[in-house]
């Protein structure tokens, strides 16, 4: 990125100045690869993030220059400063930014030659398409149809592509005709920079995992609290329950029969006998023990 020593046209210099300013004013920037992303998705994101982030389509080389001027080593991003790049400048937590971007989806049509990321189903029913050349498209896609009142009906829900399949031109045109914009576009940063580089695959967090950790931590804390018989109502309930279970266990083991323990004690004895019977039955089927 040795840029110095070369004359930069004035309009480029202005852009660089603007980028430097954006970098200085924001704590965080992220890079998005917009190759193949429709412009309207970027527009939508720009609108949704308005006030929270600035989206700027940039030439990678100019961004590199700006980074250097802003005192950030462009080498950190070298491999990502290619192609069509949109830079996002923000003060948001980069993980929040990524999760927010992940929530905004644009639907569009699959193009011929694209790979699907999901199963595509042509739904049963009225297609609104008159019979004619399209009938053979249905035919080639092995979709059963019938014609009623001069309209093509799909006989039943039909899977026409599985995840990973390449979309044929027949399928692409059919989806267009049926108004099935099934391709979901969502953008994730390739990386974010917040003092350190955070790669894109780390940016979208597994919330279930965090919930799980919270649960585990809380349960562990409860275990300690119960063990200490911490005098808080929520904890004491568990402690009392534990004490009661232990008391009953002791009563059972001692065969201590009172009106309130009798049933539990007997039940335990029977359960144990059943267990033994089951075990004996394995060794001596001739006894015909029947534990049901």
């Amino acid at each position, binding site marked *: 990125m040795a840029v110095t020593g070369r004359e930069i046209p004035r309009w480029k210099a202005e852009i660089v100045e603007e980028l430097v300013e954006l970098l200085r004013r924001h704590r965080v920037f992220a890079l998005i690869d917009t190759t193949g992303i429709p412009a309207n998705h970027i527009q939508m994101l720009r609108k949704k993030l308005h006030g929270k982030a600035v989206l700027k389509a940039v030439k990678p080389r100019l961004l590199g220059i700006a980074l250097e001027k802003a005192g950030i080593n462009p080498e950190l991003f070298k491999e990502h400063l290619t192609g069509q790049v949109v830079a996002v400048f923000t003060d948001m937590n980069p993980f929040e930014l990524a999760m927010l971007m992940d929530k905004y989806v644009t639907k569009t049509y699959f193009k011929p030659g694209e790979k699907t990321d999901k199963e595509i189903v042509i739904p049963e029913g009225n297609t609104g398409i008159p019979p004619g050349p399209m009938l053979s498209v249905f035919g080639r896609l092995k979709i059963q149809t019938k014609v009623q009142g001069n309209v093509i009906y799909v006989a039943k829900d039909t899977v026409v592509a599985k995840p990973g399949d390449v979309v044929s031109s027949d399928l692409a045109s059919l989806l267009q005709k049926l108004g099935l914009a099934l391709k979901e576009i969502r953008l994730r940063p390739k990386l974010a920079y917040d003092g350190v580089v955070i790669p894109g695959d780390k940016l979208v967090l597994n919330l279930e995992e965090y919930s799980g950790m919270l649960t585990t931590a809380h349960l562990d804390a409860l275990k300690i609290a119960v063990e200490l018989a911490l005098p808080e109502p929520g904890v004491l309930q568990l402690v009392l329950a534990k004490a009661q279970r232990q008391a009953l266990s002791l009563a059972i083991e001692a*065969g201590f*029969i*009172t009106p309130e323990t*009798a049933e539990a004690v*007997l039940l335990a004895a*029977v359960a144990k*006998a*059943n267990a033994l019977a089951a075990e004996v039955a394995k060794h001596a089927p001739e006894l015909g023990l029947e534990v*049901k």
Partner: protein
Amino acid sequence: MEYIYASLLLYKAGKEISEENVKKVLEAAGVAVDEVRVKSLVAAIKNIDIAKVLEQAIAAPVAAAPVQA
């Protein structure tokens, strides 16, 4: 639990769970019988529907392994 097993044995054999019978069974098993325990056992068991308990024991789940904590 010896006293309990003795009672259940009597029940299954169709005998009355009386102090005398419980004592006889326990003694046959070589248990030094504690009169007091026999008394309180027999009294308590009178109030229980053993048939129902046995039914429950079977209906009751049967949990899998020892759930090791």
